């Protein structure tokens, strides 16, 4: 299934982008977001990659990538196993937001179970620069699930 409520899929990320559009006011109070994030879900047989280009207060484009080489040159990658991603999303859905141990920073800071990578450190730093907005973006999972 790849409907709008099933993680991960382009449709699911598009639903999150729709939530972002509907809740523009909340994003405006945080400030604009200009970065490219690649979400990588690792599995034994390979990885699923989704590129999300954030611009201003919305998502400019969402693409499923065959390989990381297809990503825009300026990007960072947030990678984890599919199970870890799913646990984070489920936690957000059940609480309406992540609990203290399921925020993006909490999961990525020790480089385990999630890790942030990129072509250079400045790109990786963009993940920190826009962290609150990216967290809010994923928090939209609760709204998508409830829809």
């Amino acid at each position, binding site marked *: 299934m790849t409907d709008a409520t099933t993680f991960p899929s382009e449709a699911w990320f598009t639903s999150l982008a729709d939530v972002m559009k509907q809740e523009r006011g909340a994003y*405006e109070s945080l400030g604009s977001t200009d970065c490219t994030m690649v979400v990588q879900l690792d599995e034994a047989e390979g990885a699923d990659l989704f590129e999300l280009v954030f611009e201003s207060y919305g998502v400019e484009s969402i693409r499923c990538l065959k390989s990381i080489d297809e990503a825009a040159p300026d990007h960072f990658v947030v990678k984890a196993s599919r199970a870890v991603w799913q646990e984070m999303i489920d936690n957000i859905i059940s609480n309406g937001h992540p609990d203290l141990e399921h925020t993006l920073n909490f999961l990525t800071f*020790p480089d385990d179970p999630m890790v942030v990578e990129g072509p*250079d450190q400045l790109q990786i730093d963009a993940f920190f620069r826009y962290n609150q907005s990216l967290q809010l973006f994923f928090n939209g999972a609760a709204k998508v699930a409830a829809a």
Partner: protein
Amino acid sequence: MTKYSATVEDGIDGMREMAKGNFNLRWMDSNPEGWGQEVTPSQDGLRLENIEKGHYAKVPEFGSRHGSMAPRGCYVPDETPGLDQYTLNEMSEVWSENAAALYDEAVVRQWNSVTDIPWHKLEKLPDDIEKSVCQMCTGLTEVEFVAGDMPAQWLHRINHDFHEVKLFLATQIMDEARHMDVFRKRALANGGGLLSASPANQDLLGAILTAGDYTTASALMHIFGEGFVLTLFRQGEFLAPTEVEKTIFRMCMQDEARHVAYGVKHLQYLLERHPEREEEIHKVLDLGEQAIFALTIEPQTSEPRAILAGGGMDNIELGLARMAFIYQKQVKEYISRLKVAGLDRLPRITIPLEIPDLGLAA
């Protein structure tokens, strides 16, 4: 007999002329090159980069010789006096290609410690945890405003033609004011208070404030100091016992990452044009590395974080072992940022890349 000074008398004469309909109006056609500017706002509003086009985008390699506060791109009458204030007149001494974008980003990402932190969610914490949070906040209250004091002492030295940099640095001062205030508030807001200052902090803070020129001060502060603090903010969010601290550290993290981004791109811009200054940057980083190492192992800095990482005083050793990776991460990111800036620091680094095995069980 003249009643007023010559200046006032001249002014009154001028007003009499205007009253007769004799206006000057030369200012209306004073800047034909700069007139008729076409501007298209970005989808999220009017950014600096939207207006700094054509005539106004010409940033001179050397700032105005007149040395006044006349805005870049306007007509400057010959009689405009200089202020004799600017010593940073070469673009490469301060410039960063992302300064304008970072300024706009900073002004739309401002927040405040009065209403943006969910203070009502503060909760009573065990004594060892509250003391650790308060000590961590004491240290951060102590260091944060150096990143306000440092740009403040250089701002009036920067030629007015480089306004993008001046504007960005002004936002940084405000950011740091907010950081100082939010950590002080957290220390005092939950039944605890400020704990111990850090003597080891002073070496690093002093080195930043007494650096001989802006670029070395910037390398030491924006890349080195703020880079290390950025990781501490991430760690703070990771260790935060409540939503209150989580929010504080996430907000501060965003601000700090902007400052680091300016510093990296500034150093890159400078070294591309003045590679001969590489050695001088290495030397100031030598100083910084020694100071940060002393700071890292100081009890006021390391122990509260170890208690939080272990989940309490009973597990402080476990917490210390868990925190060893923080230092490794800080050093790795520091070297990586310098690499982006064009400085290969790895062969020159004066501190260990990781904390030696202390025999602690993680």
